[in-house]
């Protein structure tokens, strides 16, 4: 036959385990140790409280623009929990929950958001990239990091986050392609939160799913309920194993929703209706996980309250610390703006630095 199949393409699967009501599909329920379940819950909850606090700080004018994570905690935590310390996290700019789970501190994140370079503070040995503002560029960084892992025959992996909007950038395409061609241990986590600022997914792509974009690169792709931490966990587990043992990347599409503004500079009432948002409130990833954990007897209202209280206190203190650091930094001299451009500062920069120092003195002098 001359009209034959050139390539058999599998359908794209959708995985959901824990539904909106907190009901679990027993056949699919992954076997997760209880302490991990609780830790994941705590990381999600902390992420939520942190996010709320950050929004408040922003509204009070204490920090600048940032991208809230509300509603996306399961997508971040269910995936990042598979990372070993030696694995790499390559975030976009909306993964505070995952970053904190990996070791970033609220203090640093806030310091950064308050406009201080010092907030980007990645300890020696930590395998975390800082947030990446240019959309989609980080996919290639993940490929390069994974190349290093493979080159040295380590058993690490790189986990790279990006949004639905990012899938339109050329760098998404080049990043996934490079990872696929070289057989690199990368897991690409797309947080499909349905919006890229004001652009709905339907105008971002004509494809039914983002997961099917994997077909273009000859790698596995799967769509999961991104508000269902069990589904995210299960799908990522498979992908992480595939990365580690088969050196093959995977594209996981976590279907979730951006419950908040895009960033604090954004006004979503201009482009979306509460009608669209409302059903998603019922799909909250923390609520349903709570129901699940309660049913399992791992959690009760008192424990939740205790956690929330502890987190609130921790966050209050964290802001106090941050303010102190800001105060310190504000009273230190700002000559550091000339630092770290090069390992060794070239003469013209030294000259400019000296000039700047001089100006600082002059301006201090003049008032």
């Amino acid at each position, binding site marked *: 036959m001359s009209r034959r199949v050139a390539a058999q393409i599998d359908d794209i699967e959708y995985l959901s385990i824990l539904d909106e009501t907190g009901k679990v599909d027993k056949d699919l329920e992954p076997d997760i140790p209880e302490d991990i379940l609780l830790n994941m819950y705590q990381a999600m909850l902390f992420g939520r409280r942190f996010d709320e606090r950050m929004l408040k700080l922003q509204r009070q004018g204490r920090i*600048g*623009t940032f991208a809230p994570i509300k509603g996306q905690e399961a997508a971040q935590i269910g995936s990042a929990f598979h990372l070993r310390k030696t694995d790499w996290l390559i975030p976009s*700019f909306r993964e505070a929950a995952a970053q904190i789970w990996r070791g970033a501190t609220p203090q640093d994140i806030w310091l*950064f958001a*308050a*406009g*201080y*370079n010092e*907030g980007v503070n990645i300890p020696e040995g930590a395998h975390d990239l800082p947030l990446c*503002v*240019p*959309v*989609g560029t980080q996919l290639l960084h993940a490929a390069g990091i994974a190349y290093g892992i493979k080159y040295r025959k380590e058993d690490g992996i790189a986990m790279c986050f990006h949004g639905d*909007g*990012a899938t*339109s*950038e*050329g*760098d998404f395409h080049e990043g996934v392609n490079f990872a696929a061609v070289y057989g690199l241990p990368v897991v690409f986590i797309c947080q499909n939160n349905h919006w*890229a*600022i*004001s*652009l709905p997914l339907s*105008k*971002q*792509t004509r494809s039914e799913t983002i997961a099917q974009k994997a077909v273009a690169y000859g790698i596995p792709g799967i769509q999961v309920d991104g508000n269902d931490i069990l589904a995210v966990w299960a799908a990522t587990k498979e992908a992480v194993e595939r990365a580690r043992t088969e050196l093959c990347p995977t594209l996981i599409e976590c279907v979730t929703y951006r419950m908040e503004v895009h960033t604090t*500079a*954004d006004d979503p009432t*201009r*482009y979306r209706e509460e009608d669209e948002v409302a059903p998603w409130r019922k799909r909250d990833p923390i609520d349903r996980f709570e129901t699940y954990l309660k049913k399992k007897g791992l959690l009760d209202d008192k424990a939740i309250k205790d956690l929330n209280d502890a987190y609130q206190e921790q966050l209050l203190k964290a802001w106090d610390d941050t303010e102190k650091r*800001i105060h310190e*930094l*504000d009273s230190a001299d*700002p000559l550091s*703006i*000339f630092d770290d*451009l090069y390992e060794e500062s070239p003469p*013209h*920069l030294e000259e*400019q630095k000296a000039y*700047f120092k001089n*100006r600082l003195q*002059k*301006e201090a002098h*003049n008032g």
Partner: protein
Amino acid sequence: MAELNMIQAVNLAMREALADDESVVILGQDVGVDGGIFRATIDLIEEFGEERVIDTPLAESGIIGMSVGMAVNGLKPVAEMQFSGFAYQAFHQIENHVARFRWRTSGRFTMPIVIRMPYGAGVRALEHHSESREAYWAHTPGLKVVIPSGPRKARALLAASIKDPDPVIFYEPKALYRSFKEEVPDEPETLVIGKAEVVRAGEDITMIAYGAMLPRTMEAAERLEKDGVKAEVIDLMTVSPLDEETIITSVKKTGRVLVVHEAARSFGPGAEICARINDKALFYLEAPVNRVAGYDIHPPYFAREHHYLPSVARIVDEARETLSI
């Protein structure tokens, strides 16, 4: 006459162009339903429809590459790059195609494209949202680079840029978007691209600025006035091609020059201005051309951004230095 801020003025110029010429289309990220993240395109989609005010996928090369094709096929695209710091994703489309299509087809296919990009520091923004890299575009043959310093000029220059048969990088100083209002005439108004304006006459020193540095430079000139210094201030408006004539005429008169820009100093616009003065008026100089520019660093995050930007005090002090007073 209406009192408009710069973002409203930019909006007005686009509205007029859309109303005036069916071949004008607007495209970019969030320019439609959202009205642009700075609201530059607010209400345009309601008035002109989504075929003319086009929300694009998140892809800068896509926006510019599609604009090239649109221009080839008779449209006049006004493309928005959400921030100048993300125009580099489209650099190749601009350098390889936008800047060359007329030339490489001996005029058969032209590129009446305007690429609007908010640039510069001063709005407490994130990384990559504060740079001022007009020199990249100015060094690219085939492009024009236009930078307004206030609402009225923004409207008139953008109107002229959209009418221009050649590609214009329209660099918008976002720090000025809402910083002050100006009377903007109701009737259409354009300014000539490639012409600078002496916005303040004086004979002691020539101060050349544009965009967000212009108001600061004017303020510095006023402070200097108090000490009896009569500064001439030139608003460049077009960075490329440079209006050499206006610059040289002034320099020959004053013999002392200050160039103010927020772009990094080295290989920045001030270097070319200095070189042109060197070419045409070297022996009129009584002091070196003084470049008051951004330092050769990345603009620090916003808590310390003001240290990077030329301040009024710095401009004044440097003018005194140049005047040896």
